[in-house]
């Protein structure tokens, strides 16, 4: 990536620093433009998109209703229907299908021989077939379809007269609790799942396992965040402190294996403090320049560190192509950055890992041509075998 001359860099740097004041609109210009656009916005505010959408839906409904009325009038006059209402027909069909699914579930689930075992007889297949509305139904609600179905099944299947006369809400809390558990509704207060309800017990056990699993994942995430935050702060501090060259060297702990691929030889103590933020940085792709219009701020080394750290992680994970992409982005964003030599050394390492030794040699030659006195050069040469 070619670099701008120092003169051009100064000019661009000045423009960046003062872009809001110099290149943007003045306060008066902003106000004038706002005044000119205000009438348009007033229309937009009065009719936000949600309202426009609702108006469109109401309009569509009115048209359908009008067609329905016309069809009804025509039917009244001619004696036979000639206008079909697809929306209404679809709705009726959907509703009928849902009812059929509910009834099938009841029939499949309520195959117990006595009223006390009806709840246990509700199979998981039957519950799965219940529609969303039926799943939240209350079996004791007056007029409920579920209640009617349960009563009918009890009357049909109960062997004895007493059981036949049972009613789900009057026959004790055990039955009601079982039904509620199976359909996903909250059980009535003071009840427990009746013994002999294997499905309910299995469901409770499964739910407990899910909760335990989620709690474990949550604790792992919290631990990772706790470890990452101080590590990132430590990494930023290390980057800002020039007296700590080891922390600034993104190549620290890297060496090439016999097959030309990079592997990490970092000690375990460093790995615990540096790998987490680097991994997090690598997974944020594509890396975007974080900035605001109001405060562009001075160029920071953090962005460079983030990209080079992600590239280093990619090298450690034996993904040299990914590392090269990140290093190219670094060259694009920071052509004259503070860590150009480190970038070039890592490029050479990545190219070596890809068996592109000629290209790696070229990069190293360019690094030498810069008059670099860096310790990186002999290290990279020895690791690459160049």
């Amino acid at each position: 990536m070619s670099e701008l001359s120092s003169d051009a860099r100064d000019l661009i740097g000045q423009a960046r620093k003062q872009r809001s004041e110099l290149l943007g609109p003045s306060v008066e210009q902003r106000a004038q433009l706002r005044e000119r656009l205000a009438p348009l916005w007033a229309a937009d505010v009065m009719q936000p998109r949600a309202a426009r959408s609702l108006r469109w839906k109401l309009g569509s409904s009115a048209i359908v209703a009008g067609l329905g009325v016309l069809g009804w009038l025509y039917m009244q006059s001619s004696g036979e229907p000639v206008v079909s209402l697809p929306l209404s027909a679809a709705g009726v069909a959907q509703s009928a299908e849902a009812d059929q699914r509910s009834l099938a579930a009841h029939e499949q689930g309520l195959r117990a021989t006595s009223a006390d075992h009806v709840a246990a007889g509700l199979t998981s297949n039957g519950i799965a077939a219940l529609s969303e509305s039926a799943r939240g139904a209350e079996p004791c609600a007056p007029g409920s379809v579920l209640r009617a179905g349960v009563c009918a099944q009890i009357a049909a299947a109960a062997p004895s007269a007493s059981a036949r006369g049972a009613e789900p809400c009057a026959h004790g809390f055990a039955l009601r609790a079982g039904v509620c558990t199976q359909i996903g509704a909250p059980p009535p207060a003071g009840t427990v799942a009746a013994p002999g309800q294997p499905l309910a017990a299995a469901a409770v056990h499964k739910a407990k396992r899910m909760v335990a699993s989620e709690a474990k994942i949550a604790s792992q995430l919290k631990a990772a965040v706790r470890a990452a935050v101080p590590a990132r702060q430590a990494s930023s501090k290390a980057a800002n402190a020039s007296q700590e060259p080891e922390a600034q060297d993104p190549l620290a702990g890297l060496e090439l294996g016999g097959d030309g691929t990079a592997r990490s030889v970092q000690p375990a103590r460093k790995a615990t403090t540096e790998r987490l933020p680097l991994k997090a940085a690598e997974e944020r792709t594509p890396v975007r320049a974080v900035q605001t219009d109001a405060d562009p701020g001075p160029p920071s080394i953090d962005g460079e560190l983030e990209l080079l750290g992600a590239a280093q992680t990619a090298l450690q994970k034996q993904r040299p192509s990914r590392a090269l992409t990140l290093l190219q982005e670094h060259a694009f964003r920071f052509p004259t950055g503070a860590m150009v030599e480190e970038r070039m050394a890592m490029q050479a390492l990545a190219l070596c890992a890809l068996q592109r030794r000629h290209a790696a040699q070229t990069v190293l030659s360019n690094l030498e041509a810069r008059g670099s006195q860096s310790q990186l050069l002999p290290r990279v040469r020895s690791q690459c075998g160049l």
Partner: protein
Amino acid sequence: MRSISLVGTPTEDARAATPAQASELRVDQVYEAHVDFIWRSARSLGVREMNIDDVVQEVFVVVQRRLAEFEGRSDIKTWLFGITRRVVRAHIRQQIRSRTQTETSADLADPNAACAESQLASLEGARLLYALLDELDADLREVFVLSELEEMSGPAIAEALDLELSNVYARVRRARLAFDAALKRHRARQARTA
């Protein structure tokens, strides 16, 4: 879903809208958050000072018309730059046809132009910047503005300009070379006249 204030103040919501928030964005919020960016972009892409407010107004008319299409899957600045770029190109084509462009690059480049503001070094820098940008081709100018002035990343520029990432890098390289060459020519002219 996070609620967005109805008062037209610059909010973070309008700066970085998620897909959920994008459906709640209003054009006045976008204006407050991004008018500077659009103004700068239009100016850097070649719109003259005398026409800049008309062009920015046109951009926001388009934004208002098309805001419902923005789903928040990309950065809103990328989306806004795409609109600005098309409006600016149409404006420049119209200007070329009507030949009403009275302001020239030479006027901007001349630090001794009859303008009280030109006494300020910073304004001179801005004028010089625009003059040098005028010397770049439109394609190079766009990538240069986004990469150097707006400091956008390569992938973001590729998305804004609908280009391959490798093309973005290649264009930025050429744009930097062209900008440097234009600056050197300008310095040489300055040295001759001094």
